C-alpha cells in the first residue's frame, strides 16, 4: 500500500510540475557571464525563473577563462547571458568576433542576451552593437522621462507598459520598472522591436538634465537622443541558422529590487523571463517538417514535370510549444507564398492552410516554359524563425507522342488530308483506266 501511494504521489507531483518545465527548442545550457562588481544574488528571482523552466545555469566572471563557450569549435552552451556591461576587456572566447561567430553558426547557433547598464556601455559592446545596427548615445546619458517617471526627483526610473506581443507570450500585462539607456536602431530588417522609449523621453546626463535639451534647442533639435523611435529592448535574428540575440538597455530590469516598487509588484520578472523565452528560442520558433509536390492526378512526387501540368505543392510547418516542449503542427501562418522560379519567379501564389493541421497547400499550372525550376518558400516575419525551403525540379516539354490527338476542332484538317489521299488514289485508278480506254481506241482505229 505504502509504495503504491508513493507512486501515485509521484505521478501527481509530476503532473503538477510538468507544465512549468519548459524547454528551449535548442538546448538547456545557459552560460551567464558577469562583471566582478555584480552580486549574483541581486538577480535571484530571474535565475529561479530560468531554473524552474528547466535551464541549467553556469556562472562565470569576465576575468575567468573557464568554462569556455566552445570546445573544438563545438558550442558548449546553447545560450549566453552577457551581464557584464562595464567590463573593459573580454576573454578571447567572449570577444565580439567570437560572439558573432557563435551566434551566426548555421547548425548550432548560440543565443545571446546582452544586458547593458545605464552608465557606460563598454567599448567592445558598443562596437559589437554597431554590427547589429544598434548605436548608443554618449556615455553616462541614461534615459530621462518626466512623464513616466516613478517620481519627479528620480526621472531616470521609469514605469513603462510594454506592448503585448506573440513573441513575449509569457508576459500578459503590467508595468515594468526601467532604469537604463536607450539606443538607436538602424533599418536592418533583422532587428525586432520589443520595447520603444516613451515619446517624451530623452537621453541626458541626470545631473544636468536640462543642458542637453537647451543645447539641442539651440541647434534646432539636432543631437538630442529623444523620442518614441528610440529603442529600449531590441531583438535580432540571424537569417540562416536562426540564432537570436537580444539587446536590453537596463540591467535593473532583471534585478530583484525592481520586482516591487513601494510595496507594489511590478511585472519585471515576467517580462524579463518573456524576453529570455524569445531569445532562447522558446516562443515564435517555427520549422519546416516536410515538403511535398506532385501532379494533381498522381500521388507520388516527380523529379520532372511537363509544361502546363497541374501541380500541387504542400508544406508542413510546426511551431515549438514551450509549455510542453514539443513541436506542434500550426496553421496560423496566413501570408506564406510559394514561388516557382527559374531565375525569376514565373509563378508566385499563396500557400493557404489546408484542412489538415500544419499543412499549407498551393495548386497551380506549370508555366509554358521548360527548364530547371525551383519551388521556393521564403517566409520572413519579424520575430519569427525565418522559413526557407528550396526544391529543384525540371519542367520538360511534351514528348513527340504526348501531344493530344484526334481533337474535334482539327477534323476539317484530318478530312482535308484524308480526302486528298483518297482523291489521289481515285485519280490514279481513273488515269490508269482512262489509259486503257485510249489504248483500246488506238487499237480499234
Amino acid at each position, binding site marked *: 500500500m505504502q509504495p503504491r501511494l508513493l507512486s501515485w504521489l509521484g505521478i501527481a507531483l509530476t503532473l503538477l510540475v510538468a507544465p512549468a518545465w519548459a524547454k528551449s527548442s535548442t538546448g538547456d545550457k545557459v552560460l551567464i557571464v558577469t562583471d566582478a562588481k555584480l552580486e549574483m544574488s541581486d538577480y535571484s528571482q530571474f535565475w529561479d525563473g530560468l531554473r524552474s523552466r528547466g535551464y541549467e545555469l553556469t556562472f562565470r566572471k569576465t576575468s575567468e577563462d573557464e568554462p569556455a563557450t566552445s570546445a573544438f569549435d563545438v558550442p558548449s552552451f546553447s545560450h549566453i547571458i552577457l551581464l557584464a556591461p562595464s567590463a573593459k576587456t573580454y576573454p578571447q572566447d567572449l570577444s565580439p568576433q567570437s560572439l558573432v561567430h557563435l551566434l551566426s553558426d548555421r547548425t548550432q547557433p548560440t543565443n545571446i542576451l546582452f544586458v547593458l547598464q545605464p552608465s557606460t556601455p563598454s567599448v567592445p559592446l558598443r562596437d559589437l552593437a554597431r554590427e547589429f545596427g544598434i548605436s548608443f548615445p554618449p556615455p553616462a546619458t541614461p534615459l530621462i522621462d518626466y512623464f513616466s517617471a516613478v517620481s519627479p526627483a528620480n526621472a531616470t526610473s521609469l514605469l513603462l507598459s510594454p506592448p503585448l506581443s506573440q513573441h513575449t507570450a509569457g508576459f500578459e500585462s503590467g508595468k515594468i520598472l526601467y532604469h537604463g539607456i536607450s539606443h538607436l536602431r538602424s533599418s536592418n530588417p533583422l532587428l525586432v522591436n520589443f520595447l520603444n522609449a516613451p515619446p517624451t523621453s530623452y537621453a541626458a546626463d541626470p545631473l544636468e538634465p536640462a543642458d542637453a535639451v537647451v543645447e539641442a534647442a539651440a541647434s534646432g533639435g539636432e543631437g538630442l537622443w529623444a523620442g518614441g523611435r528610440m529603442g529600449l529592448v531590441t531583438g535580432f535574428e540571424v537569417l540562416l541558422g536562426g540564432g537570436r540575440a537580444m539587446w536590453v538597455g537596463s540591467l535593473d530590469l532583471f534585478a530583484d529590487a525592481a520586482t516591487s516598487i513601494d510595496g507594489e509588484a511590478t511585472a519585471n520578472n515576467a517580462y524579463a523571463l518573456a524576453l529570455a523565452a524569445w531569445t532562447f528560442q522558446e516562443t515564435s520558433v517555427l520549422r519546416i517538417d516536410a515538403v511535398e509536390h506532385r501532379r494533381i492526378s498522381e500521388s507520388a512526387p516527380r523529379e520532372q514535370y511537363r509544361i502546363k501540368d497541374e501541380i500541387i505543392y504542400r508544406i508542413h510547418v510546426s511551431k515549438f510549444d514551450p509549455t510542453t516542449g514539443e513541436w506542434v503542427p500550426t496553421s496560423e501562418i496566413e501570408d506564406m507564398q510559394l514561388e516557382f522560379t527559374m531565375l525569376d519567379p514565373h509563378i508566385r501564389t499563396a500557400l493557404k492552410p489546408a484542412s489538415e493541421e500544419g499543412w499549407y497547400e498551393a495548386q497551380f499550372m506549370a508555366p509554358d516554359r521548360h527548364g530547371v525550376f525551383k519551388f521556393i518558400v521564403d517566409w520572413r516575419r519579424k520575430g519569427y524563425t525565418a522559413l526557407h525551403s528550396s526544391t529543384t525540379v525540371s519542367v520538360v516539354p511534351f514528348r513527340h507522342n504526348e*501531344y*493530344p*490527338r484526334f*481533337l474535334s*476542332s*482539327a477534323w*476539317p*484538317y*484530318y*478530312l*482535308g*488530308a484524308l*480526302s*486528298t*489521299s483518297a*482523291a*489521289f488514289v481515285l*485519280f*490514279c485508278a*481513273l*488515269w490508269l483506266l*482512262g*489509259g486503257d*480506254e*485510249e489504248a483500246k481506241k488506238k487499237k480499234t482505229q
Partner: protein
Amino acid sequence: MAPPKKVSTTASSSTSAITSALQDLVQSYKENTPKRVKIIDAFLLFIVLSGVAQFVYCALITNYPFNAFLAGFGSSIGQFVLTAAFRAQVNPATRSQFTIISPERAFADFCFGSIVLHFFVYNFLG
C-alpha cells in the same frame, strides 16, 4: 489550254462579250481537251476547293491545332503542285517541251512524289 476557235466581234455590250467569250472558252475546253487532262483538271479543282475550305476554317474558326492545319493545307498545296507539273508533262499541247520524259515516266514520278508527300502529311497531322 487550247485557244478558243473563234472570237466574237459582234457583241454590242461588254457584258455580252464576256458572256460569249466564257461560253466560247467552255465550248472550246469541252471540245479540244483530251479526256485524261479533264480528269487531271477535275482533280485539281477538288484540291483547290479542299484547300480553300481548310483555309477559311482556319481563318474564321480556329487554327488550333496549327500543325494539323499546316499538314492539311500543305497536303492540298503539295498535291496541287505535283498534279499541275504532271499535267504539263502529259498535256498534248505542252508535251513538246518534255520530250525526254515519257508519259509513263511522268506518271511514275507523280505517284512517287505524292506518296512521299502524303507520308510527311500524316506524320505532321498529329
